């Protein structure tokens, strides 16, 4: 196995693993956050605007973890620096 194959394999497998494992935690967290927000909305409909705003900000915070994983996997697939380096080297030969 030459290094191009190795890098391609490692990048693809790691990209899949990154987004798969990285979305578990945020999914659980968002589910908990929405469930708690819904129950507090049912208990106190008067403070709906505050709860909704805090919920949205919190959801964005949680979601950004998943977004980081997505960005990393996208970089691994479409803009992989190691891959580009190896390709440049192979082209230079």
């Amino acid at each position, binding site marked *: 196995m030459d290094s191009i194959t190795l890098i391609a394999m490692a990048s693809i497998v790691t990209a899949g693993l990154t987004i798969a494992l990285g979305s578990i935690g945020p999914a659980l967290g968002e589910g908990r956050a929405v469930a708690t927000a819904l129950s507090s909305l049912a208990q106190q409909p008067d403070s709906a*605007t*505050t709860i909704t*705003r805090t919920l*949205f*900000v919190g959801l*964005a915070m949680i*979601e*950004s973890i998943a*977004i*980081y994983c*997505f*960005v990393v996997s*996208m*970089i691994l697939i*479409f*803009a992989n620096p190691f891959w580009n380096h190896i390709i440049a080297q192979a082209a230079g030969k």
Partner: protein
Amino acid sequence: MRLSPDAMIVWQYGLFKLNGTIVFTWALMFVLAVGSKLVTRKLSTGLERSRWQSLLEIVVTGIEKQIEDVGLRHPEKYIGFLGTLFLFVALASLCTIIPGYEPPTGSLSTTAALALCVLVAVPFFGIKEQGLGGYLRSYVEPTVIMLPFNIISELSRTLALAVRLFGNMMSGTMILAILLTITPFIFPIAMSVLGLLTGMVQAYIFSILAAVYIASATRVRNPKPESAAKR
């Protein structure tokens, strides 16, 4: 497949390049600036108002209300910065319904620039509100041990702001591009509608988070409130 509108070269003269990000940003700036200039050219205070003036009034009062809800007491001081952030990011994602357009916020350079603006604006407003000493003292609250952590959090939240907006916008266009190759008929429309919603939520989040950071920097430390002291 390109990751961002950075890779789209619109015009080139020698070393001087204009990529898609810059062109779309300029177009948005043009629309925002000229549009609001045209609307505010003849403002009326009477009952007879143009519908565009009503639109701008709704936008401005809505943003002021949101800023005030976060805890900034005089929103008119901050609306110039926070409102511009919101309007730019919101318009950038709303314009995705125009064919051939790519949101400039889908490029890490744009979002990093916006996040750096927030990084500079937070100490600016903080020093303006409570003086240099008062602002610097907020770094060593509650103890001096927290000093490095406060500085790290300042930097890491800037990174988070930039990457969050970039990731959301980039994922929208990326998912559309992937879906167009798999199911090119109805489904991309549904996803682009979802993308519009995501874009508005991200614009809201970006400006609200900036407002929260500014609010935490400008909070003037009063002596403990009565109710808290009694408990």
